Every structure is written in structure tokens, then in C-alpha cells.
């Protein structure tokens, strides 16, 4: 393992510490990442490691920097400091191993494109500028649509889809990339129950195939059902680890503070009870 020239970063309590060493194989490792909008850090000096062959959730209150952390890890928004490793390599060198599912609301759904066209966008890197989308590629795109139960919609204009269907199309596009690490930004936000089921089935299948899945998630009641690993964030890292011993009342209280009512906590299937 090479950890040469790691920058020294200031920890929250002001002590200068070396960031944790980079685990060579981890699908996604974030080291000392700070992202700032203006002069207010949205994510401050965060270390996070997301394990292989697992589904991980990034959890925290609104404005805690969940989506920001994901986007900064991908380089979609610039990092002020810190490093991101994907399977031990700097993220820039491992792009073809990552598939990203952005928030549904981040695009204009009246854009002139069909469901099939959107899924094929996942193949653009493989096809290149001049390459033709071969029959084999089209078949693969159709197969991905089939996996999310949207095969019948391939010629629809995307604006005619329901919110849940739009989310499934985005997932199909990521599947078309045939990546090893899947990063999803609130995949269950505002979707119907059938879609949530369909998405979680696909993600569990990915995990079974040995892929890593990391999702920004906001519904605490489903965390234990869906995920193996959690990362709790509120600007700073609060806790991370297996759901069974990290998704605890104490950690949730530390993450959400007063915003999470005790009565609400009682109803959650958290590890270890109250």
C-alpha cells in the first residue's frame, strides 16, 4: 500500500493528523474531503470507506452534505481538499468502473430524447465519438431496460413517464455502463412502492454479482432492510460501519440532534434497541 505524500489535514478538534491510510481494494475510499459552497463547508474533512459486495447507505439530515459528498467523490463538484480512491486508484483513473444515478429532479424531462436514447447514454464512453451503436449495444440497452421492468417503454419520450419510471430509466442507464461501483443519489425519493421494490431488487442482484452499491438514503425506516453498511454524516463524519452495530439510537441522535424526535427513534428498527 502506498500512502506517500499524504497531505496533513486539520481534524475537527484542531489537531493535525494524517488521514487514515487508503485501503487498497475498497470500492470507494474518501480521505479528508472538504467541499465548500462559498465559505461555508458543506462537507468537512470527511473520511469514509465503503466496502465491497455490500449495499451502503449515506444517511444524515437535510443539508448534511450527503449528496455533496457523493458528487465530490465523483468530481462532479470540485473538492476544496481531500482525495478519493476507487478500488485503490485515484477516482479520475477509475471512471469506467463507476456508474452514477443522479437525482431525478436534476434534469429537464421535457428534453427531446426517448427512453432507449437515455439508456444508450450509458454506453457513450464505450462507443466513443465515431463508433456506431451496434446491434449488440442496442441489445444490451434493451436488456438493461428489461432488468428494471421498462422494456415496453423504450420508444417513449421521457417526459411521458411517471416519476418512478424515470428513476428506473436512470438506473437502467447506469446498468448499461456495466460498472463495479454504483453510486445513487436518493434513488427512492418520490417513487411509488412498486418502483422502490423493483430498484431494490436490482441493487440486491448487483450486490450478489459482487458489485458495490452506495446510495444516499433518507428513509430511516428501511435502512436495516435494504443496507449492510451505513455512513452517518452531518457535515462531519459521525459514524460508519455495519448496520448491525452502527445504525444505533445513539449514533442517530448524534447525527440528527434534536431534529429526530425520541418517539420517532423508538419506532425505528435500530440495532441494539433503545
Amino acid at each position, binding site marked *: 500500500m502506498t500512502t506517500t505524500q499524504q497531505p496533513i489535514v486539520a481534524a475537527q478538534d484542531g489537531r493535525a493528523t494524517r488521514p487514515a491510510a487508503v485501503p487498497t481494494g475498497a470500492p470507494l475510499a474518501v480521505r479528508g474531503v472538504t467541499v465548500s459552497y462559498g465559505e461555508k463547508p458543506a462537507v468537512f474533512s470527511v473520511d469514509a470507506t465503503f466496502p465491497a459486495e455490500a449495499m451502503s447507505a449515506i444517511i444524515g439530515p437535510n443539508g448534511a452534505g450527503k449528496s455533496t459528498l457523493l458528487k465530490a467523490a465523483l468530481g462532479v463538484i470540485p473538492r476544496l481538499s481531500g482525495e478519493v480512491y476507487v478500488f485503490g486508484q485515484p477516482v479520475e483513473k477509475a471512471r469506467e468502473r463507476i456508474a452514477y444515478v443522479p437525482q431525478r429532479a*436534476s434534469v429537464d424531462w421535457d428534453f427531446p430524447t426517448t427512453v432507449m436514447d437515455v439508456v444508450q*447514454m450509458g454506453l457513450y464512453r464505450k*462507443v466513443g465519438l465515431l463508433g456506431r451503436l451496434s446491434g449488440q449495444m442496442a441489445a444490451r440497452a434493451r436488456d438493461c431496460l428489461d432488468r428494471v421492468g421498462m422494456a415496453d417503454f423504450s420508444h417513449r419520450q421521457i417526459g411521458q413517464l411517471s416519476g418512478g419510471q424515470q428513476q428506473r430509466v436512470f438506473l437502467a442507464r447506469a446498468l448499461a455502463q456495466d460498472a463495479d461501483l454504483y453510486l445513487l443519489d436518493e434513488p427512492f425519493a418520490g417513487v*411509488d412502492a412498486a418502483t422502490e421494490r423493483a430498484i431494490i431488487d436490482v441493487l440486491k442482484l448487483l450486490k450478489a454479482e459482487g458489485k458495490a452499491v452506495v446510495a444516499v438514503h433518507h428513509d430511516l425506516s428501511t435502512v436495516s432492510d435494504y443496507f449492510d453498511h451505513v455512513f452517518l454524516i452531518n457535515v462531519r463524519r459521525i459514524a460508519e460501519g455495519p448496520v448491525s452495530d452502527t445504525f444505533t439510537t445513539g449514533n442517530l441522535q448524534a447525527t440528527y440532534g434534536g431534529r429526530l424526535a425520541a418517539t420517532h427513534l423508538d419506532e425505528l428498527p435500530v440495532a441494539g434497541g433503545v
Partner: protein
Amino acid sequence: MNAFFEALILQAGYNAALVAVGAALLGFAAGSSGTFLFLRKRALVSDAVAHATLPGVALAFMLMVALGGDGRNLIGLLAGSAITAWIGLLLIEWISRRTRLAEDAAIGAVLGVFFGVGIVLLTIVQSMSAGRQAGLESFLLGSTAGMLFQDAVVIAVGGSLAVFATWLMRRPMTLVAFDSEYAAAMGYNVRRIDLLMMGLVLAVTVIGLKLVGLILIVAMLIIPAVTARFWTDRSGRVIWIAGTIGGLSGYLGAVLSASAPALPTGPIIVLVAAALFVLSLLLAPRRGVLAAVLRHRRFQRRVHRRQGLLALAARHAIRETYTLRLLTKEGLVRPDGVPTDIGRAQAAKVARDERRWDVAREIHQDAGLTGRYDGLTPIEEVFTADEIAEFDRRLGPPVAVGGA
């Protein structure tokens, strides 16, 4: 009229033919390369870029005269305009990225300042004693008088390159226009692709300066793409339809202006494009205004018909005159509001379908199916005949409506 047809078949003289062909080529290039500008929602950036060409034209003229050359050398003028336009573009980019100003403010600032500087420089040029400056002001609104073969060649070569580059870069540009975050996550350099897109627009602007002028070139970039959007739902097709619309507008506009004295070519081309836009806006099959009105009327009729039948089934009086008129016209009720036999039969069917839906909700836990209830969708489209038979078995025998 005769003059129009002569011009249409390029028989109205060498200059008119040259202008018509040049305008058609320019229209095609502008329409297709303007597509992504429109899809990326940055149409107005091109307006600022176009206005930022003016100082370059004047400065290039001054420089060429100072060096003892011909101040009106076309290539020199276009190169000068391209340079200041590029500076304007970078400034807009820089202002919206590095300051808290939004892009629209940056556009306004750059457009105003560059155009103002251009007008000042142009005034200075007018007062210069040397260099045959007459005609420089035609870059504002374009001019076809004295269009040379050389001008047409510039348009043909530059335009073809712009169209080729648009085609070549269609995938990255589509991706960035639709979902720039996803593009960035895939490793595309979004900023560079945006600059390239604007560079293409800039190239078309510069080659179109002399024919259409810098004030109206934005219309040739945007109107064809907006028009094309009415006719297709696929971005790849928007490129070619926009090119065709742009080419057609250029050709027809040039022909129209050649067929009568004192019709300015650039503005006429823009008006032709605008006419095609209005036609598309009104008549396009799915996105057009007329289609939308008809669709809405049809939908409203279905709602009223269904509500009327439900009222009949419940033996309520139908109060809304529109509903009553609709049912009367279909022979479902008599003008006094009493249902006919057909009306009673249909009302019974509608009422029964409502009760079938109730049963469906009870026995089908799948929200995907029962969730399709909206009061209008026929139950036969959602459930199979066997399933409906099962609902009926649970409901018991049908009940007649209206007490015959």
C-alpha cells in the same frame, strides 16, 4: 410574382443566385449548430457573442489600414470579430463561474459593453480619412449588395465544418445538455464541451456576419432549433430538422428579398424562419397549440360524458348544460333530461364498472393495477376478462338503472 419565381429557380441574376445559395448554406449551418445552444438553454449567450464581434471588426479594420493593407479584407475582418467574440464568451463564462452574478447578468453586461465599444470604434473608423471604410456598418444588419463569390466560399467551407463538428460531437453535447452531472461523472470535461459548443456557434456567427448581420444572427441560430423541437422527440433529429428549416428560411428569405427592390435580406430571412416557427407552434401534431386544444376538448368531453352517465345511474338531475347537450347529442338522454334506453344501458354499465373497481381494490393488493383508476380508464384495459368475471361473481347480478 414573376420576379419571385425567377429568383426561386436562381434565374434572377448572378448576385441574387449567390446570395440565395449562401443564405441556404448559412441557414443550414446555423440551424444545426444552434440546436445544442437551445437544448443547453443558453440561447442568449450567442446574442452576446454576436454583439461582441463588432469591436473586433472595427479593430481589425484599423489594424489592417495601419499596416498599409486593404482595411476591408474579409478574412482579416472575420478573424478580428472572432477574437473579440471569443474574449466576450470567456468573460461571460468567467463572470458566471467566479462571481456571484448569474449568467443572464453576465450576458447583459458583456453584450452592452462590447457592443458599445464596437459602436464607438466604428464611429472612429468612419472619421478616418484612409481605407475605404464605407460598408463596415453593414456588419450590423447584414448586406447582400456586392456579395462576392469569395463570401459564398467562406460560408460554404465554414458552414460545412461547423455542421461536421456538430455531428461529430453530438453525443457528448447531448449528454451535457441533458444531464451535465452525469456527463461529469463519466469523465467528460463539461466546461470544455460547453466551450466547444459555443465555439461552433461563434464560428457560424462570424461567417454569417456579412450576410445577416450581428444583431439578427441569434435568430438564425435559435428559431430553427425551437421550430424543429415541435416535430420530433429525439435530439438527433432536431439537429437535421433544424438545419433543414434554417436552410429553407435562408433560401426563401433571400429569394423573397431579391424579388422586390429594397427588401433587406437578413431581416426577411429571419421573418421567414419566424413564419415557419408560428406554423409549427400552431399545427405541429403533438406539441402544437391546436393539437393541445383538441386533446383537451376531447378529454373534457370524456369527463363530462362519464360524469353524466354516473349521474344518470344515481338518478341525479344533470345540471351542467354542456353535459346535458353532450348526452342529448349522443341520444343518451332526451332534451328534458330523461334517459333513453341506450342511456340507461350505458349508465348501468358505468355504474357497474365503478363497483367492479371497488371489488378490484379489495381483492387486488397490487397498487400498480388498481392505481390506474382515474375515473376514465375502461376497466377492460386494466384487468383481463377472467378477472372481471371474478369481480362480477362477487358482485352478484346486475341492477337496472332508471327503473324501466
